[in-house]
């Protein structure tokens, strides 16, 4: 409980430092923009990061594994998965939290007997890290999906009209997600 109270007290400092560390992964001009522009529509990346880390931190404090953690992680990772980052760089931000906590609470950690508590918190951060990898991979898979789907959408009607595609069965329709084919055509013209 001691650590939790400490974290709670230092919330603002920790979040600020964490936010800065995440922004440090961007070029200087970019990170100052991400930090300064507060309008969430003018600066969706900055907003996603700051809302995301706030949310994650609150969840960490609450001590429960709630359903909202993946959503907060997703907010950040979905963005970084299409930016100039390697997979490890894209999810590294979650590990930064450990470092920030240890730095911000350096004195308190050495003075109080809280290594057990610290270990528990860090274990939860590790768990979030693992979740982050899953989310990252899902985002990347989505990108590949979209590429494949686009090609299909572009050519589908053409092929269909050229009689190269037959009417699909229900499960096949579900696969390609096009309800349109439910509309029965008289016949596919040659």
């Amino acid at each position, binding site marked *: 409980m001691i650590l939790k109270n400490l974290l709670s007290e230092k919330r603002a400092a920790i979040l600020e430092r964490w936010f800065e560390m995440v922004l440090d992964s961007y070029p200087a001009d970019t990170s100052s923009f991400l930090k300064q522009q507060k*309008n969430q*529509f003018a600066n969706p990346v900055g907003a996603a990061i700051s809302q995301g880390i706030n949310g994650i931190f609150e969840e960490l404090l609450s001590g429960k594994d709630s359903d909202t953690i993946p959503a907060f992680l997703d907010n950040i990772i979905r963005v970084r998965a299409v930016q100039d980052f390697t997979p490890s760089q894209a999810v590294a931000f979650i590990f930064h939290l450990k470092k920030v906590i240890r730095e911000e609470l350096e004195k308190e950690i050495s003075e109080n007997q809280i290594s057990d508590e610290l270990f528990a918190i860090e274990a939860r951060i590790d768990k979030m890290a693992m979740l982050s990898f899953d989310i990252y991979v899902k985002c990347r898979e989505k990108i590949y*999906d979209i590429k494949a789907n686009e090609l299909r959408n572009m050519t589908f009607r053409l092929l269909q009209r050229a009689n190269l595609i037959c009417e699909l069965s229900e499960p096949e329709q579900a696969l390609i997600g096009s309800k349109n084919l439910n509309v029965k055509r008289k016949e596919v*013209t040659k």
Partner: protein
Amino acid sequence: MAKLEKPEELIKIDHTPPKKDWMDTPAEFKEGMYCWGAKGKDLKILDFPNARDWSPKEEDWKLPENWKDTILEAMADRLSKYRSFRLFMDICVRCGACADKCHFFIGGGDPKNMPVLRAELMRSVYRKYHTTGGKIFGKTAGARELTLDVLKEWWYYFYQCTECRRCSVFCPYGIDTAEITMMGREFMNLLGLNTGWISGPVANCYMKGNHLGLEPHAIMNSIEGMIDDIETITGIRVNPSFNRKGAEILFVTPSGDLFADPGTFTCMGYLMLFHELGIDYTWSTYASEGGNFGFFTSNETAKRLNSKIYAEAKRLGVKWIIGGECGHMWRVLSQYMDTWNGPADFLEVPKSPITGTVFDNAKSMKMVHVTEFTADLIKNGKLKLDPRRNDNLKVTYHDSCNTARGMGLLEEPRYIINNVCNHFYEMPDNTIREQTFCCGSGTGLNASENMELRMRGGLPRANAVKHVRDQHGVNMLANICAIDRATLSASMDYWVPGVKVTGVHELVANALIMKGEKERETDLRGEPLPGKEGKE
């Protein structure tokens, strides 16, 4: 024994990019950020210079020996020809007002996507060869030589600009970075540095009249399919005509609407509306493309591809032209067609045969946007509409850059949507109308190989959609652009799952009560209408 790093050292992943002057950082070509190179055969069809297959990934771009002279000569030529170009090269005070307004910078974070820096890529070369300060002081005066690295940097970043002009809205001097990009692409075109995604459709369009390269029978066949679908849904068989001489109106739409969902539903919308009105109109299988990817290569090419529209209007002897829902098509039509290929004095000032409204705004161009036409019909009470048929939809509206910033078409689409839907919600003010965010994939950047770029650029728009989805349950994103219909579908899929994309005339046709129609069970997509769920 090697020193064991402490845990916090292990997790210290420092990837802060090194702080170097932008001029000293050559472009690094990253997968997902650029399109594939043009095919030699397409360039050949178009008589474009340096026709050969090439790949931006390769070290050797197979450039002609005198490539540098070619560009510098072209630059000198365009500077003398276009006053705006010289002005844009000279007057930027680097105030930075535009810097954070580009969707690619906002979503991607690469400083060279700040409009001011994008323009600086070219300005620096301009200074070196055209200003005294630049000639003498070089880098200290912000000037640099045109080298191969610079050329590659141009290519990389001028194909990361969608020419959306959002930045220009914020520039106190009205500098239009889009025009600088156009110029950059035009120069590179002289070296055969096109993308496959642009030059392929341009070659198709040049040979067959449309980007997809569809021949007349394929176009008619596709529309036949839509006619069948319309009959299934409404019980009414619409009967459009093709290439009919003596029709009053020629209808031209982007070819994307003919084949790719959800554009096809918009196309069904046009067919139903025109049939219901009983207007005397015809499709053309020759002027079968309103869009103009030539616009993304050079002024001359755009003009060449555009010429078929007036030519076909003349051949068929129509009185005026209606154009379908498209973005860049309208930028080209409303800003250039008249001076390129006009005057179209063989046409009449467009006058709605139903309401008698004269479209004075199109007095010279003679072409009316279909949303202008339809908004006028609704305003005059000429359509029987049942907006409840769209009650399953919570709609928001994306202003296409080209129709909004390029021609000020802001109210008509909204007016229509409000008349055919009961649930309409605007996105936040700084993301719509003149300040609208690009879909992220315009100007021929809608290929698949550059998906990361598209997703970055699409983020600011998608983020605003997400907001209205979360606030109001919005599930449909309406727009009046064929490219949007395709690219926003991809963007929604990644950023805001659950939100679908539609053209405005799909919504119109769903609500339109046609004379003699049967009781409709489904919408144009074949999905049950509200209240008809569960019935098969």
